[in-house]
């Protein structure tokens, strides 16, 4: 059976060059990067080389990179770190309804601790309105957190427009760029944010490692206490093999980004147009908006997304859905719901996310298999003849 992986927003296959680089640090360079002896210093050298590679991908200074245990931890550190460091100035934060749970749950936690959070709506296009953000800014607003691109729809948020509005008022701007880094150019000298979250496994690096970019001068209270690692901002012995793998993935991403964007957007459009041409009753969620080049979120009317996912899995095709049934209740995508999509469209939503490894043959295989599955499911539907 063929095997086609189109769930790269969930995670990506680790690049062999990344694995090779990591193996050196499981093996002879196994030292603790805080140790003074040569074993430790070899690990330290790898760690600092990785810091330069991560910084280089976003045109930051290495001193502005804090390694974390992934994107979720980076989001937690950014939001709680600034909120707690700035709470004497105010206790109001702004985010959007379509953020990743790593941001939403962190904001909710702060609300329980006495902070106030404004959750911005999005339009049917899936984008936050900069005008609504500007109207929501208050004298006691200390932080705004808006993602670079949505993980479900790929819709790119107008961060470049919003961040200056925020920062000119002395308010800090955090951007969860976990889905955007390595898929789009995000140089922090021109992409004006104060904090930016990155995760390695979204672009062929290892899981369990990420980074928070913190612009020089941004106040931050550490959330993990202990030793003096990461300039006292994130205690805990560094996961050196994962970090050097992360650095290698950043270097590869920088070298490949232009080719990746060009190639994968052609394949994404081939998939999208192929589905729109072959199947009736479908819609592309976020269509017409500026989107990440490798993602499309498509709703199939009258189909349950989870059932479609399972049928595709039977054919060796891996995708994800925005609506899953658990314990007898449906938990619909909070992102598609925030876009105002009717329930029947949300339930039938499927996300296809490609990678640099995706081929034209794989896309054509999906286009060969998918229409028949959708037709059978519609023939099965209770409403089709009752």
């Amino acid at each position, binding site marked *: 059976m063929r095997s086609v992986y189109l769930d790269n927003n969930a995670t990506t296959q680790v690049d062999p060059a990344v694995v090779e680089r990591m193996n050196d640090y499981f093996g002879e360079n196994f030292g603790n990067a805080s140790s003074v002896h040569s074993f430790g210093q070899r690990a330290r050298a790898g760690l600092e080389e990785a810091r330069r590679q991560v910084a280089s991908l976003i045109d930051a200074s290495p001193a502005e990179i804090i390694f974390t245990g992934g994107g979720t931890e980076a989001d937690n550190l950014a939001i709680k770190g600034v909120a707690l460091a700035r709470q004497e100035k105010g206790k109001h934060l702004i985010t959007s309804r379509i953020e990743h749970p790593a941001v939403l749950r962190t904001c909710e936690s702060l609300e329980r601790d006495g902070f106030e959070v404004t959750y911005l709506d999005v339009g049917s296009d899936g984008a936050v309105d900069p005008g609504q953000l500007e109207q929501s800014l208050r004298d006691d607003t200390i932080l705004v957190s808006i993602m670079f691109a949505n993980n479900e729809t790929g819709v790119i948020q107008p961060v470049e427009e919003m961040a200056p509005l925020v920062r000119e008022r002395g308010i800090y701007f955090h951007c969860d760029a976990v889905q955007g880094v390595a898929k789009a150019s995000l140089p922090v000298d021109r992409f004006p944010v104060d904090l930016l979250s990155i995760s390695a496994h979204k672009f062929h690096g290892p899981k369990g490692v990420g980074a928070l970019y913190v612009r020089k001068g941004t106040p931050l209270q550490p959330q993990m206490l202990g030793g003096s690692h990461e300039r006292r901002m994130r205690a805990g012995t560094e996961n050196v093999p994962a970090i050097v793998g992360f650095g290698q993935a950043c270097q590869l991403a920088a070298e490949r980004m232009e080719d990746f964007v060009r190639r994968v957007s052609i394949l994404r459009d081939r998939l999208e147009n192929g589905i729109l041409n072959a199947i009736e009753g479908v819609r592309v969620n976020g269509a017409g908006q500026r989107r990440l080049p490798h993602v499309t979120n498509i709703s199939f009317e009258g189909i349950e997304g989870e059932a479609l996912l399972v049928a595709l899995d039977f054919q060796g095709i891996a995708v994800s859905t925005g609506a899953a049934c658990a314990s007898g209740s449906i938990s619909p995508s909070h992102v598609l719901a925030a876009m105002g999509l009717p329930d029947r469209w949300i339930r039938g939503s499927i996300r296809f996310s490609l990678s640099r490894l995706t081929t034209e043959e794989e896309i054509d295989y999906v286009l060969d298999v998918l229409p028949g599955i959708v037709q059978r499911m519609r023939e*099965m539907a*209770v409403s089709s003849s009752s």
Partner: protein
Amino acid sequence: MYSSVVKKLVHDLPNRGSLKTATHRAEGENPVCGDQIELFLQVEEGRVVDCHFQANGCPAAIASAAALTLMVKDKSLQECLDMTESALLEYLEGLPSHKLHGAQLALEVLRRALT
């Protein structure tokens, strides 16, 4: 999460659609998650000679309904009524614990159709 049997049933959807020759029919719905199952049975001389289904819902509900259409063929009405959740789950090679409501709904609709 799902067995290969469940995946194949959800992919192939055997006996899908209504059955014009049906002598028995029933439908049921899980009002919480919206799963819907409709079963059509053609019964002759006390035995099921054909069974079809329609469904909307999660893979567990769909696979359960499709499995029942295969399991009940050539069975007597009493054998169908005696069919247990564990027998259905054995046929499906299991369901995730939070998806058992799909199997329960399918069996409920079968019993409703035959009584």
